[in-house]
């Protein structure tokens, strides 16, 4: 709507009431806090038409008013900072009382600069030590992070890394994760502002994993001292999304209920035990190089595979967990998704979603022992995970021209005439991202990928 106002004509938006703060936060960031919108009690998605009409009826006066008079500009929720390269330094009094011990956390919480869990105080000395773990300059800007259009400088990332409990040897992984988010095909804006609950999953490959202390064995995605590096890196990315991207709970972040995985997820491939080549080698890296992949996901769901005795059993079991109609299955027939970047909303097409399947080494071995490569397994899943075409088109049609011809994949339109036709749930086998990690037993995790994915090298000192 801000783009429309910028083009010179008035606009009014209709939004669900639970998104009101998120809406205001976004238009603040977009530079027009007075953008008009009305709220209705519930999101229209999934509602019956009569109910939607009744909700609109109650707001029609506000809609007309929004087109005919300029709204009073609300006070900006947070001061827009600009220009100065000098990071503010605050002095906080601490003492041994319970209040005194918590004074740094209270100071940060009062400014909404936290994920709600106590942090390590980001002192100048700690930040300086973190910055020594990279050759990048403190004021280098890795990206402009939305929805707040915050400048992700190396120094700000380091401050958030300290807060999360990162050690310097883990900092290059975090910087690489931010490099991933900077790629347009990551669609980080939608990851940040969607009402749908999703979180970034960081996948680490190569020697950096061991050097940084990332656990890739038993319990790697869980709590515990052995997982402190995994936890700290994942948490640091979330703190960056909050403090650099201004994706604050209930404001930039309007998730309907959120996910515990949003506190952070970082795992490394168990390359020592996996029977297959590591994921980053699939992407063109050398085995002795390090790479980080970030992918936006919801879930996970644990797949219990105790009864399988063959690779087909295991893949059948994994496939059975995967799809329901509204999860985007078959959506590739509607064309690639669009990411939008920056204040101009520049549109970038990308392929999605990618669904990570986190395989225990034991589950990879049952496949490999039968002579199945990773690509064979992906191909199998691609062929077997299918969606009923009629049902998919009924949920939401594909783009057509004026004569009803499909704009994408016209060579497949003949399938419309077959009431029993099915199509692959995903466009290509590679979209089943098989990643081998954790303890070696009969389990797997399946994540629904939602938006983009990117893989970048890790730059070490």
């Amino acid at each position, binding site marked *: *709507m801000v783009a*429309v106002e910028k083009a010179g*004509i008035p606009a009014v938006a*209709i939004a669900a009431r639970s998104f009101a703060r998120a809406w205001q936060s976004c238009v603040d960031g977009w530079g027009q806090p007075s953008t008009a919108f009305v709220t209705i009690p519930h999101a229209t998605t999934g509602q019956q038409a009569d109910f939607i009409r009744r909700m609109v009826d109650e707001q029609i006066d506000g809609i007309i008013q929004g087109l005919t008079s300029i709204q009073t500009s609300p006070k900006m929720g947070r001061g827009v*900072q600009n220009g100065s390269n000098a990071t503010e330094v605050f*002095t906080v009094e601490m003492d041994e009382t319970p209040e005194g011990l918590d004074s740094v956390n209270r100071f940060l919480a009062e400014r909404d600069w936290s994920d709600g869990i106590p942090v390590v105080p980001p002192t*100048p000395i700690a930040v300086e030590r973190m910055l020594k773990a990279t050759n990048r300059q403190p004021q280098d800007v890795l990206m402009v992070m939305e929805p707040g259009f915050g400048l992700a400088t190396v120094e700000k990332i380091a401050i958030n890394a300290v807060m999360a409990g990162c050690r310097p040897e883990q900092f290059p992984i975090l910087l690489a994760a931010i490099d991933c988010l900077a790629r347009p095909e990551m669609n980080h804006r939608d990851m940040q502002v969607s009402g749908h609950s999703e979180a970034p999953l960081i996948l680490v490959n190569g020697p950096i994993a061991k050097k940084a202390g990332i656990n890739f064995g038993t319990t790697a995605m869980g709590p515990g001292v052995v997982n402190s590096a995994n936890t700290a890196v994942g948490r640091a990315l979330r703190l960056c999304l909050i403090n*650099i991207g*201004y994706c604050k709970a209930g404001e930039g972040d309007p998730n309907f209920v959120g996910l515990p995985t949003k506190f952070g997820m970082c795992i490394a491939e168990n390359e020592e035990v996996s029977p297959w080549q590591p994921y980053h080698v699939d992407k063109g890296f050398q085995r002795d190089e390090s790479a980080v992949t970030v992918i936006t996901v919801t879930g996970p769901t644990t797949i219990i595979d105790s009864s399988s005795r063959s690779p087909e059993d295991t893949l059948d079991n994994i496939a059975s967990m995967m799809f329901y109609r509204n999860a985007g299955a078959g959506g590739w027939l509607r064309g690639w998704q669009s990411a939008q970047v920056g204040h101009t909303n520049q549109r970038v097409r990308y392929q999605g979603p990618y669904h990570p399947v986190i395989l225990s080494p034991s589950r990879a071995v049952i496949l490999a022992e039968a002579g199945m490569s990773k690509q064979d397994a992906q191909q199998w899943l691609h062929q077997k995970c299918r969606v009923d075409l009629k049902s998919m088109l009924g949920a939401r049609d594909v783009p057509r021209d004026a004569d009803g011809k499909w704009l994408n994949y016209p060579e497949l339109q003949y399938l419309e005439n077959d009431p029993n036709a099915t199509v692959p749930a995903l466009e290509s086998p590679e979209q089943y991202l098989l990643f081998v990690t954790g303890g070696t037993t009969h389990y797997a995790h399946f994540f629904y990928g939602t938006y983009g994915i990117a893989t970048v090298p890790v730059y070490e000192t």
Partner: protein
Amino acid sequence: MKLQIMSPAADRIDFKVPPAPRLTSLEGKTIGLYNNMTGGADVAVDRVAEHISQRFANVKFERYGGDIRSGRPILSRGVHIDEEEASRIAKEVDAVVGATAH
């Protein structure tokens, strides 16, 4: 004990977009109805059109957001209007009412 801590909050790009001039009346105007192709947004903007038609004379409507509408290929499917589209919309209509299903 005094402890110095550094601000974790990033500087932000300070965009400023002035609001567009408002209409004095909707009578005789053309109103754009934008839905981003998420569920029910089309129903919401269609209802707005019904109300406006009843209250104001000679109002016309243009619908946007329909990558599956014949004659309107690929315009803002589930995403935000970009500058090029906004510029085109501004030439075709006098104001826009949008719904995003959220």
